[in-house]
């Protein structure tokens, strides 16, 4: 516990300098990167490469960002690992305690997501700005092979939506 914390502090200190703000999860990034490093340095037998699919995010400013997403990862991790720049995304780091990783799907894509939202996910989504019937939390959506070519919208933050 203590060691983990210490390393986290050190690593965040290392990463903090030139990255002006956001994107949280340097720890997730680190975890992801270090797996690659394990492959390169420690293992004589290459581990099977995870399948990759193409996912496109439609950002708040109208820009499109296409990324390669690993099958089996959740969309929050994919956004963090690919440094997709969304202010405040994933504030609770995927623990179902906020709704900052709110994403909007097309109806047909929404219907195809294998895991349906739990009450707890819907509870958090209820607090999201710009909630739609096809909204999900990125941290709860696991990428599948079928999702190749998926287009996902990042909702606009609305400042006066406080209730």
């Amino acid at each position, binding site marked *: *516990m*203590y*060691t983990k*914390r*210490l*390393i*986290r*502090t*050190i*690593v*965040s*200190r*290392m*990463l*903090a*300098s*030139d*990255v*002006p*703000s*956001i994107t*949280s*999860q*340097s*720890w997730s990034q*680190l975890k992801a*990167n*270090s797996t690659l*490093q*394990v492959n*390169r*340095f*420690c293992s004589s037998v290459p581990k099977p490469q995870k399948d990759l699919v193409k996912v496109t995010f439609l950002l708040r400013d109208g820009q499109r960002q296409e990324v390669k997403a690993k099958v089996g990862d959740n969309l929050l991790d994919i956004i963090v690992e690919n440094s997709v720049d969304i*202010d*405040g995304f994933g*504030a*609770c*780091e995927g*623990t*179902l*305690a*906020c*709704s*900052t990783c709110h994403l909007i799907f097309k109806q047909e894509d929404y219907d195809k997501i294998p895991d349906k939202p739990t*009450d*707890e996910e*819907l*509870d*958090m989504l*209820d*607090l*999201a*700005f710009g*909630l739609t019937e096809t909204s999900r939390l990125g941290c709860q959506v696991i990428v599948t092979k079928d999702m190749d070519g998926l287009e996902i919208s990042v909702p606009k*933050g*609305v*400042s006066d*939506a*406080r*209730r």
Partner: protein
Amino acid sequence: MTLCKLRSQWLAFKSMKVPMDFKLFVAFKLWHLNGQRQQSTVSKVISGGQKPHTHVAIVGSGPAGFYTTQQLLKGNPNIVIDIYEKLPVPFGLVRFGVAPDHPEVKNVIHTFTQTAQNDRCHFWGNVEVGKDVTLEELTDTYTAVVLCYGASHDRLLEIPGEDLPNVISARSFVGWYNGLPQHKNLAVSLDCESAVVLGHGNVALDVARILLTPVSQLQKTDISQHALEVLSRSKIKQVHVVGRRGPLQVAFTIKELREMVNLPDTRTTIQPQDVQGLDKIITDIPRPRKRLTELVFNSATHPSAETIKKWAEASREWRLVFLRSPIKIQEAGDGQVKAVEFTVNRLEGNNLMTQRAISTDVTESLQCGLVLRSIGYKSLPLDNSLPFDSHKGVIQHKDSRVQGRKGLYCSGWAANGPVGVILGTMTDAFETGKVILQDIENGALQNQEKDKREKLIDKFKSKAVSFSEWTKIDLAETSAGEKIGKVREKLTDIQQMLHIAKS
């Protein structure tokens, strides 16, 4: 050495099979190197005669302060931020407001820590604006000043008996179990069977939940030890959570209600007549009100068989009570609280969601030995010159720009009142940041002299707690927690905090 190289070397090294101690040693070495590199970059920037920096002061280090800082640092590479904090420790209500059994919500601290460790951000803890420095001194020495000091006072009921012992503001109670230095000695007696919580917001449910949660669940959290000891001797069996309006007007959110309904060893009681007819209108209500109302309705009328079984075996109970306004807190002969007297209300108004409570002639009493008042917080003006709406308890502003004060901004609860979860504050703070960036871009703000600012900082520099000094307090707290099986044991004595910070 570039950051990239440092990072990849560390990553490669980290995955090797060497003892943990050695890894830690190398980690420290890298950290140190990186620190030196940062320093040299800073001196290069300063001596290189680049574009002069724009200095912004942020007053308050809670979510509003940190999210505004993030936006400013990201949006303009020439902005340098000074964050002022009254206490020696950062993070405001994330540390002192968020309930100890909601550790996930506190994960925002990781990004705040990254922000605070940015070269262009300085944390000045233990420096109180209004005492150690004046607001005028800040506005005179910074290009922009952003007030993010939250809402530090609570509203009063203004009814007889409010000053009796064990009639406590929920705000103080929260501060007490969260280790806020000013409330560590709060006199709380849980030597009674029944408590009344007045209010239907998330804070009301937080305090009710803490009163009813088994101590075995709380003892691993960062709840303060003094509170845990009192809670472990608690005799409270029943908590009434009372609001003046009906189920459609509650201000708490569904997550908090679901936690109450699922509390171990605790029964939920909602009178079916209070929710009568709700099923007919639920379908027409938009989310989020819809799902919240559904949960209230289902818990009152047809809980699941499993839930019924759990509730039947429960030794404690919480009751959600509607349409009651407190008019008097009754005193027993010995000067202790005996009961709260209420008038029964009816609702008036065409819009179901915004109906008002109107008192009737009917009154009733609830016996209790503890009253927690949770009817809202309010902000106070930091300075007499500040345009302030004392009715709403907020700074007067338009789009975060304080009325009639160029270069002065406000964000978060100090600007908008104490409403909503961190998400609302975050969105608001990002907007505040954008407004300031825009004003800087348009040349609407004036940079101030560096000498004047340095002179000001010299005034409090020796007493101020820097962010790296805070990390010493952080480490002391987590180590103290580890010894007793908790994630953290917060220091509650300011002198002790300062002692560790300056050691």
